[in-house]
């Protein structure tokens, strides 16, 4: 057990160290790298905590996709030194901030360490509620059935976010394709990668989404990989994203929550009620929703990465 304890201690110190380094980093670029490293270390922490599903999500979305959009903005953002130094808080303000952070962290530590032992848990109930659905992964069962409303609302939140990002565009850019223009380099390493990786990546993405029903994985993790496989050829300049007014793109983004909503409402007729699954048909219905959601997650994440339309409307 001591080896495990030592590993936990090392991981904890490494996470805190890289997080502190992220704040202290001299350039914004370095800060983003620090953040991504922290995220990857956190992935290990999640494995240590026995949460492999979360570890996959953290790697794909927490460190991966978030890191990509941070880098993307850093590359285009050059703040004025004078403005930043004028806005930098004074020593006293920073001391106050440190005091605030320490007291919140301290209070939290006090609260966490006095949590009851043995801890209350829904593990048993969740496990008992997984088998009737025909699923093997209790986390997926919680996401799709017991707390299905959370997942439905979250899928809708992604649509909100895409729409909000698009609506930040300049008026005359409306109808254009999302994101800036990337130059195409016919023989560059990036376009080579963008040609050979997607076939493999798409298979992996679908695989990870598919196995989610019974083992770690699922629509968010798989969808993120699919999104990456779509963004890569955009950045390499090989393909152009569809216009924001293209209804096919919009349908792709909305099909997941729409399917979820439709199956949920159908529960009024064919099952006991909203978001209830008819006995025996739970797994196929859940797989149907997961398939539609994977597509939507991929499209939504890709659009969130690309950003608002920045080029002209098609003639």
């Amino acid at each position: 057990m001591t080896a495990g304890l030592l590993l936990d201690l090392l991981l904890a110190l490494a996470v805190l160290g890289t997080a502190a380094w992220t704040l202290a980093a001299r350039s914004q670029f370095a800060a983003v790298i620090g953040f991504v490293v922290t995220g990857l270390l956190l992935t290990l922490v999640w494995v240590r905590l026995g949460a492999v599903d979360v570890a996959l999500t953290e790697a794909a979305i927490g460190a991966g996709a978030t890191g990509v959009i941070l880098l993307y903005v850093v590359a285009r953002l050059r703040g004025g030194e004078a403005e930043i130094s004028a806005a930098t808080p004074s020593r006293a303000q920073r001391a106050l901030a440190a005091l605030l952070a320490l007291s919140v962290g301290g209070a939290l530590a006090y609260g966490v360490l006095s949590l009851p032992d043995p801890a209350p848990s829904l593990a048993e109930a969740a496990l008992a509620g997984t088998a009737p659905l025909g699923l093997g992964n209790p986390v997926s069962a919680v996401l799709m059935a017991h707390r299905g409303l959370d997942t439905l609302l979250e899928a809708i939140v992604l649509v909100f976010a895409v729409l909000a990002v698009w609506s930040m565009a300049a008026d005359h850019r409306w109808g254009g394709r999302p994101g800036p223009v990337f130059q195409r380099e016919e023989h560059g390493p990036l376009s080579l990668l963008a040609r050979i990786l997607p076939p493999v990546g798409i298979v992996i993405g679908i695989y990870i989404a598919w196995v989610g029903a019974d083992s770690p994985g699922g629509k968010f993790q798989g969808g993120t990989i699919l999104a990456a496989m779509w963004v890569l050829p955009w950045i390499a300049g090989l393909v152009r994203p569809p216009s924001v007014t293209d209804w096919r793109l919009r349908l792709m983004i909305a099909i997941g929550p729409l399917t979820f909503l439709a199956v949920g409402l159908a529960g009024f007729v064919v099952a006991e009620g909203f978001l209830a699954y008819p006995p025996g048909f739970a797994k196929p219905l859940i797989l149907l929703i997961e398939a539609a959601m994977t597509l939507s997650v991929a499209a939504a994440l890709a659009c969130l990465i690309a950003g608002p339309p920045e080029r002209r409307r098609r003639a």
Partner: protein
Amino acid sequence: MSLLVGAFSTACVLAGVFFFVAGTAGLIRFPDTLSRVHALTKADNLGLGLIVLGLLPLAPGLGAALKLLLIWVLVVIGGATAAQLIGAAAARDEHAMPSPPSGGRGLGEGGVP
């Protein structure tokens, strides 16, 4: 037999870890971008390759073994592309006067899952 396999695995993983450490040391110690990238990708590809090799005999089935190999192949491809892009960017910076990077160059890692 199992003792032999265990020894082989341990040796491979230890060797892999050694290459990782060496690569990281190179990343920190080498003076310029190109040699740093060189040290890192070479050592990491080799290091990961050895670790995968060490884990292969322990894989529960053919599927798991193939997945391990796939991971290595993907990392090699991703690492090679990233190294090319970083190298090209470094060369650009040396030839031209330092200029603000344009567009989305340097985002090569974006596609690697």
